[in-house]
C-alpha cells in the first residue's frame, strides 16, 4: 500500500511538472486524499441521522402531489379514448360502395 501511495505521489508530481494547466506551478490533477479508502456503502451514505427527513405532507395541508400524477395519467387515457371515438365517428367509409 505504501508503494502504491508513493507511486501516486510521484505520478502527481510528474504531471504537475509538465504544467498540465499551463501554469507549470500547480499539479494538473489534484491528489487523492486516500486511494485505498474503503468505498462508501449506499446505506452509510444515507441522509444523516441528525437531519430530519422531510415530511410526506404537512399536517396543515392535504397531500395531493400523487393525485396530480394520477390526473396526468387520466389525461393520457382520455386522449387515447377520444382518438378511438373520433375514429368510430369517421363517417368517410374506407370503401364508397359497400
Amino acid at each position, binding site marked *: 500500500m505504501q508503494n502504491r501511495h508513493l507511486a501516486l505521489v510521484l505520478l502527481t508530481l510528474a504531471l504537475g511538472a509538465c504544467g498540465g494547466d499551463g501554469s507549470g506551478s500547480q499539479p494538473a490533477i489534484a491528489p487523492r486524499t486516500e486511494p485505498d479508502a474503503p468505498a462508501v456503502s449506499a446505506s452509510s451514505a444515507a441522509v444523516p441521522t441528525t437531519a430530519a427527513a422531510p415530511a410526506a405532507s404537512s399536517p396543515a395541508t392535504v397531500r*395531493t402531489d400523487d*393525485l396530480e400524477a394520477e390526473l396526468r395519467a387520466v389525461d393520457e387515457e382520455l386522449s387515447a379514448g377520444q382518438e378511438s371515438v373520433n375514429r*368510430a365517428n*369517421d363517417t368517410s367509409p374506407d370503401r364508397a360502395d359497400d
Partner: protein
Amino acid sequence: MIRTPVRLAALALTAGLSLAMAAPAGAQTTTTAPPARLDQLKAKSDEQIKERTEQIRKLDSAVAGARADCGHNADLRSQLAADKTGLEALNADIQAETVPAEAVALHEQIFTHFRIYWLETPKTRVVLGCDRVTVGAGTLAELEAKIQARADEAKAAGKDVAAAQAALDTMITEIASATTAANQADDAVIVLKADKGDRAVLDANKAALTAARQKLRAAMADLEDARTAARTAVDALKSA
C-alpha cells in the same frame, strides 16, 4: 353514391351478361368454355373477397388487442370469423359457377351479404370505442377512489371538504353516465346484420350506427366532465 371503377365494371359486366341472356335464342352460340367475361368476373370476385378478408383480419386483430371489453368483443370476433368463412365459401361458389347470370348474382353477395366496409368496419370501431371508454372510466374510477380516501382523511382531521365531496359526487355520476352510454352504443351495433340487399335494413343499420356514434361522443363528453370534476376536487382539497 360514388361508385368505384371496380363496381362500375361489375355493373357493366352485369349489364352485358344480362343483355346476353336476353338475346334471341337464335343469336346465341353454343360454347363449352365459359365466356371470357365470366373469367374476368371470377378474377375480380377473388380480388374483392381477398381485400375484405384482409380487412376482417385487421378488424379482428384490433378487437383481440383491445385493453377492455364492453361485453361483446367475443361475439364480434365470432361474427368476423363467420364473415371470413362465408366470403371464402362464396368465393368457392363463384369460382365453380358456369352460368354467367348465377355468377353475377353471387358476385353481388360479396357486398350485400357481408357489408364489410359499410357495416362490419364501423361496427367494430364502435365496439372498440366502447372498450376505450371503459378503460378511461376505470382509470377515472380509481382516481375518484383515491381522492375520496384523501377527502375522508381530511374530513377526519377536521377540514371542510364539502366542495371536494360535491366534485367527487359529480365524478361518480359522470363516470356512470359514460359507461351507460358507451354500453348502449355497443349493444346497439353488435346485433346489426348485413342487409342482403334489403334497402330498409340497410337504412336501419346506418341509422343505428349514427345513433351509436352519438352515444360514444356523449360518453367521451361525460368522461371529460368527470375529469374536470376530479380537477375541482383536488383543488378543493388543496385549499381545504
